[in-house]
């Protein structure tokens, strides 16, 4: 039955639909952007009506939100958290800093392009992005999920060596469990 | 001798004997010198012996010996021989005890360098 193409399609549809409408965000407050999450979730903008909801631990979360600049020190934690999340999982780059370093583009201590280290599905630009922008970012992600194009995790797995090399370049003493699933 | 006088005398002897005993007891209980304590004990014994002999005395009795004089004499009263025998024994025993006591006193003096009974109290509680 599972092998049946049509039913597989239906199952895929339902799965994608439910994934689309249930986005559990691991709000990992790495930078200043974390301040924009509470307004997004609370009554004025109310992201929960889209099915967006906070998750407490990476095991339960679907989306890893990188809220702002990533220092070298936090990058390690972020990678760890990302690898602990269960498939399917998505990354949202939040704010200019994740795109090109933003105002910290020449800092000795922050990474400039997040996509080199983690597969970003959706970027939300702005410095800071307003909650409206965040909501639009979620909508974008939902759209991508529904279309089945939010496959950052797959890319990460396929290009793990490249990502690892980038990561190891930034993080000097690499002592991390191997990511092998 | 008058009977009542004899009685009085008798009590006097008893009283004296008891007094001697009490003096001995006082010595044994109060005096701090070991030697005096031993003396006190001896005095107490002497008083007791005196008491016993006095108890055995009968008015006008002679020595309790079956001698010719006794058998032939007019005085057929004989004092009770038993207390005298007892006293003899008691004196002997008292002698032995006193000897042991004195030897112990010597040893105590040798070890403690004193005869004060209050200072010889290593064993207590």
């Amino acid at each position, binding site marked *: 039955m599972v092998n049946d193409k049509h039913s597989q399609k239906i199952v895929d549809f339902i799965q994608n639909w439910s994934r689309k409408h249930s986005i559990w965000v691991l709000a990992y407050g790495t930078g200043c952007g974390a301040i924009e999450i509470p307004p997004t979730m609370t009554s004025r903008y109310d992201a929960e009506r889209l099915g967006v909801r906070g998750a407490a631990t990476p095991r339960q979360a679907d989306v890893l939100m990188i809220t702002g600049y990533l220092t070298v020190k936090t990058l390690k934690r972020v990678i760890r958290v990302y690898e602990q999340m269960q498939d399917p999982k998505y990354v949202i780059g939040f704010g200019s800093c994740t795109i090109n370093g933003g105002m910290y583009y020449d800092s000795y201590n922050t990474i400039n392009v997040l996509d080199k280290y983690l597969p970003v599905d959706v970027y939300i630009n702005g410095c800071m992005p307003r909650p409206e922008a965040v909501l639009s970012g979620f909508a974008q992600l939902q759209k991508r999920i529904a279309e089945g194009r939010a496959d950052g995790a797959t890319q990460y797995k396929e290009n793990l060596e490249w990502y690892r090399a980038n990561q190891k370049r930034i993080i000097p003493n690499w002592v991390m469990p191997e990511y092998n699933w | 001798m008058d009977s009542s006088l004899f009685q009085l005398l008798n009590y006097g002897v008893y009283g004296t004997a008891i007094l001697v*005993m009490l003096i001995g007891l006082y010595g*044994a209980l109060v005096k701090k010198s*070991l030697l005096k*304590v031993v003396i006190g*004990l001896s005095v*107490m*014994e002497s008083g*007791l012996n005196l*008491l*016993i002999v006095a*108890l055995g005395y009968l008015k006008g009795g002679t020595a309790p010996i079956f001698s010719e004089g006794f058998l032939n004499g007019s005085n057929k009263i004989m004092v*009770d021989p*038993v*207390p005298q025998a*007892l006293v003899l*024994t*008691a004196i002997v*025993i*008292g002698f*032995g*005890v006193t000897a*042991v*006591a004195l030897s*112990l*006193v010597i*040893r*105590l003096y040798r*070890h*403690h360098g004193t005869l004060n009974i209050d200072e*010889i*109290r*290593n*064993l207590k*509680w």
Partner: protein
Amino acid sequence: MVGTPVLFVAIPLLAAFLIPLLGMIWKELVRIVPGLVLMYLMVLSINLLNHVLVSGPIVEVIAGWAPPFGINLVFSAFSGFLVTLMIFLGLVVWLYSYRFKRNVGFEPAKKYFLLLMMLITGAVGIVLTGDIFNMFVFIEITGISGYGLTAFYTGRDSAEASFKYLMLGSIASTLLLLAIMILYSQLGTLNMAEIASKIHTVNPTYKVISLILFISALGIEAEIFPLNGWAPDAYAEAPGPVGAAFAGIVVKASVYAIIRYIFTIFDISGAYSFLIIIGMMTLIIAETAAIRQDKLKRMLAYSSIGQMGLVLVAFGFGTEEGVFAALFLMLNHAIIKSLLFLSGSYLVYNSKDKKIVEVNGMHKFLPITSFLFALGAFAIVGLPPFAGFWSKLSVLTAAADSHMLFVLALVLIVSVIELVYYLRVVNRIYFFKKGENVDPKKPTFNALLAMIVLGALILVIGFYPDVITGVIHKASADLMDKTKYINDVLSIKQ
């Protein structure tokens, strides 16, 4: 008939005075002869006891004067039982002290065994005699040899202990003589049976005063509180086997004397409750003092005092059950406390202060001695299935049957205290680490044998008390039957 009671007094006395002479022939004889004598007496006493149990008491008249004029010795079931017990303990003590400490030398050994034989003579004499003045003499013999044995070690403290013993002993003899004289002045006789048959004619005041003086005088030897000031010191400072001899022989004889006076001679019923009062006082004070001791032998001494208090309590019930219990307790106490003294003195053999802490970890060096000490400790607190349990049970049964529930409860509470201090010592022996400068000494073979004999007896009586209870039952019946005693003695016509 293999022998007469007079031998029990005559032979050891003779042996005592022969010892110095024999020592001139061969030095070892000093040690061997007392043993031979005691063995002979043991055989004799067992034979006589068997005879007595079957066919009634033997009354022996000395020097041909029939009672009440002459001195007589009575070997009844009661006194015979005690004599056998004493001789047995004497034998054990002899075996144990064959070459004990100072005894190794000839001179000390000569004195030691001489005094020991005198002690046994005196104690046996106390039990056997039927004459109160004769008893006084024997008490003095026991006393003097006891002073000597207490001061056997040449140290400072043993002289002190001995002096205390002597001082109280002198007062005791004074009181005793006074008591004897009061009785004599009233009745004109010194024979126990005679006195017993005439006692009802005496003015009650004199009677009571005399009894009080008797109890006080004998109470000093029998370690009754508050007359027992000498006892802990003497036990603690005398050699170990002498402590055993005191606990097993001297005190037993004194208690015998008290009991004889109260049960046979006097007819004062209040004396029984008085026994219970002083017995309880002795028991409680001694046991509470024992729990706080830090010296082993002193602790054992207090424990011994307490046990004697319990014996007096048991006698104080005045019933045959009570007497049975008391006799059983005396037997067990003699065996067990001797074992404790004997093994205890090896546990603190080379120690100066005989501190309890010095027994720490001794079981590794003296396994058998430690085991026997533990056995004795378990037995004396009355844990089944050891010997002490049965006697304690009979005491309690007797107490309950006499409706003395308060006494019963107190005895049991005191037993808990006893338990605590014995267990503390046993725990130390087995589970603590040995002190640095403690120098244990292995017991000699004869000492070990003596202890093992006692230990085996504890187990035998514990598992099968019937071996001994028959005799004790007869002995207690014998003590209770006052008229029979009087008749037996006074019917002898020479």
